[in-house]
């Protein structure tokens, strides 16, 4: 049986009916992972996983995550396992504590199999800056197309697939864009809905914990398990944790859905536009109202720059602890300055160094007001506009990416292209819950769509995604 193709729910049903044990599944998946050539693994936790599977005890039929194997993006702290954020500077760093997400999953007996590759320190969108090299899109046999990033490894692992879910993080679109390239579900709930304790800070005001799954229902299950206030993360939300899985399949509301015309218009892939328009018809058939809405071009063109400036600025400070002094790798030198400079210069990739310097520029006294502070004001302008949209509409609905997975060396510098390529950052500015689900295929490669909703309305975001998912699956997406 191809256990790797099963969702959480399907695997759980096999466990309950005693058709297979977690140990069988874990051993099977470990072999698959070992054979895989898409370069999505960092440190593995195979030994521990087998131990956990052996000692797991009696199946708990009410716990849908019991015995479910999963993978973890390498910027999430795992106790006694190397957590490197795919960076040379942390290639020997063993975290002495578990992230809250990990603690919660271990407590309900889910089984972590290992860590996945990413763009170094979550900075990047191609899956190319890991210290271990490129992560390949498993759906592209030529190995020339990207998985996207920064959650490249977790995305690839659920795309192959080798596991039913993988944890990840999303600061600008790092879950929701790769999900599109892999034809899988990528979910980023509201800011603070899932505790960030243990998630390496990149740009904290936009950092979100999230995950990849192979079904919307699985995403709802995981949210129930992971959501909630954590006293180790005082920015986590005290909002009530809904029965998300129950709500996902239940609602029949007539939603008001907005498609931002300026973003749609900047998509150049006509086949994608056609698939997307067809999906709008499906939504209408389901009883929902879908309208194209205008958004000022100045705001649209400012989305990526706003994200880039704020994230580089915050990252320049959040990477200052990587200095080779008291943890991580240290390169030798005769003085403190030499050690720190050598360690950082040789062990950070070029991408990180550039972003640190852009960030330092943005924060320096002479530039701060017109760079960093202005970007924060621009963020406000964008969020105010979207919040106004949300007074009338329940969701924003858009293609998650401009097309299928690009080639690694593909590069489009056009400001308008950037709009279609980076609009998902809106959900990071405003902390909105946002989910990408598969739409269909173009020339054999997947494209996805994204629903973004109001803060803490995960239930209806999951619901609308579920409704569309069911229709598209019926039609053979």
């Amino acid at each position, binding site marked *: 049986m191809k256990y790797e193709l099963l969702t959480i729910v399907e695997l759980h049903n096999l466990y309950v009916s005693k058709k297979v044990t977690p140990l069988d599944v874990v051993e099977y998946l470990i072999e698959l992972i070992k054979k895989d050539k898409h370069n999505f693994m960092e440190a593995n936790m195979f030994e521990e996983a087998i131990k956990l599977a052996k000692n797991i005890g009696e199946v708990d039929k009410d716990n849908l995550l019991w015995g479910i194997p999963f993978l973890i993006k390498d910027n999430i702290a795992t106790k006694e396992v190397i957590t490197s954020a795919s960076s040379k500077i942390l290639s020997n760093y*063993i975290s*002495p504590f578990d992230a809250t997400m990990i603690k919660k999953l271990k407590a309900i007996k889910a089984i972590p199999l290992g860590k996945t590759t990413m763009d170094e320190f979550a900075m990047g969108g191609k899956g190319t800056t890991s210290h271990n090299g490129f992560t390949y899109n498993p759906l592209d046999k030529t190995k020339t197309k990207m998985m996207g990033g920064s959650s490249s490894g977790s995305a690839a692992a659920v795309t192959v697939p080798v596991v039913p879910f993988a944890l990840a993080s999303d600061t600008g679109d790092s879950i929701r864009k790769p999900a599109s390239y892999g034809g899988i579900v990528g979910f980023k709930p509201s*800011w603070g809905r899932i505790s960030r304790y243990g998630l390496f800070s990149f740009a904290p*005001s*936009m950092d979100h914990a999230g995950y990849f799954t192979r079904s919307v229902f699985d995403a709802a299950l995981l949210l129930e398990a992971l959501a909630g206030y954590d*006293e180790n993360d005082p*920015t986590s*939300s005290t909002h009530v944790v809904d029965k998300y899985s129950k709500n996902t399949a239940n609602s029949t509301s007539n939603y008001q859905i907005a498609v931002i015309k300026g973003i749609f218009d900047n998509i150049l892939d006509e086949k994608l536009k056609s698939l997307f328009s067809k999906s709008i018809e499906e939504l209408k058939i389901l009883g929902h109202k879908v309208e194209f809405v205008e958004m*000022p071009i*100045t*705001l649209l*063109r*400012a989305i*990526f*720059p706003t994200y*880039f*400036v704020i994230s580089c600025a915050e990252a*320049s400070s959040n990477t*200052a602890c990587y*200095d080779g*002094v*008291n*943890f*991580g*790798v*240290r390169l030798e030198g005769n*003085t*403190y*300055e030499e*050690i720190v*400079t050598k360690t*950082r*210069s040789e062990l*950070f990739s*070029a991408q990180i*160094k*550039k972003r*640190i*310097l*852009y960030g*330092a*520029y943005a924060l*320096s006294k*002479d*530039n701060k007001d*017109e*760079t960093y502070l*202005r970007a*924060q*004001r*621009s*963020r*406000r*302008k*964008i*969020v105010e506009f979207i919040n106004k949209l949300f007074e009338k509409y329940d969701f924003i609905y858009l293609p998650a990416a401009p097309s299928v997975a690009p080639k690694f060396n593909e590069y489009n510098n056009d400001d308008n292209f950037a709009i279609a390529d980076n609009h998902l950052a809106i959900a*990071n*500015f405003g*902390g909105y819950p946002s989910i990408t689900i598969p739409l269909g295929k173009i020339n054999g490669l997947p494209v996805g769509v994204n629903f973004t909703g109001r*803060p803490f309305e995960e239930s209806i975001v999951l619901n609308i995604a579920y409704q569309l998912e069911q229709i598209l699956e019926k039609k053979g997406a």
Partner: protein
Amino acid sequence: MMDKITKEQIKKLADSMYLSLTDKEIDELFAEFPSFLHKIELINEVGGVDECNEMIFPFEEQFGTLHEDREGEILTKKEVLKLAPKTKADQISLPKVVK
């Protein structure tokens, strides 16, 4: 506000961040900087962008909490020292640091 940046300024910025760039790296960044400055220009074009307050957090109605002054779990000395690249006398060691 700079319209351009010089290689000297890039080097100075790098020094302040304890990064030493190769000439090639400085050249690359120098070549890419206009693109970054262009992004800043795009932000500048947002209507009313200098007439509102900065937005720092996504939810402005969310406030933090004060935490009770009580002890939590600490790391053992062994765990602390195990993380460090170089130790001596139960402390982390560096070549002598001059103020």
